């Protein structure tokens, strides 16, 4: 059995767990950190799917630029989701 398939299943499950934690979290800074961890798991997933061009785009954009822009937004506006 190929190790690739086992790692594919493992990292997609990690992504699913952290997505649920990010969507239902009230504190917005923690939600951004959870979504950054989910993006790291998806970066490994994209490498296992034999797509090195996409990994080179995905890591600076999804782990670096999205959390940076969203943290600037949260720092200037509200920090809690909901009541």
């Amino acid at each position, binding site marked *: *059995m190929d190790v690739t*398939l086992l790692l594919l299943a493992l990292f997609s499950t990690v992504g699913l767990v952290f997505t649920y934690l990010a969507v239902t979290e009230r504190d917005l800074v923690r939600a951004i950190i959870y*979504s950054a961890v989910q993006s790291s798991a998806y970066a490994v997933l*994209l490498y296992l*799917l034999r797509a090195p061009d996409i990994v080179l785009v995905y890591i600076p954009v999804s782990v670096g630029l999205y959390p940076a822009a969203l943290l600037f*937004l949260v720092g*200037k506006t509200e920090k809690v989701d909901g009541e």
Partner: protein
Amino acid sequence: MALNTLERFLLTLTLYNLLATAAISIYGIVVRPSLTKKIISLTILGDALNVLAIFIGFRVFSIPPVLIPGVELELFVGLAVDPLPQALVLTAIVIGLAVTLFLVFLALQIYRLYGTLDTRRIRELRG
């Protein structure tokens, strides 16, 4: 070279995980009231669907679509994964990034004009 049941289970599990991630992020866009949470869920939805598109072009026992000198063409065509979804996903990631950055600027402007980012309170203020 057929796949046995365990390998098919792992591939199907990956597919279902990606679809479930997309479903949870759609719940996040629709239900959660804060605009920032909606933007976070939109980025997660885009990521899950892009990985799903690349997963469709995947092939077990394969190499990336880069022709290394010394590998002959027949072997390369027989082993490499599909390069077309990767090119289309590259375009999709750039467009998603442009839309998300624009949404962040719009959310900042809404906060300056209305004083809040909660959509329930914005709906009351407009009337």
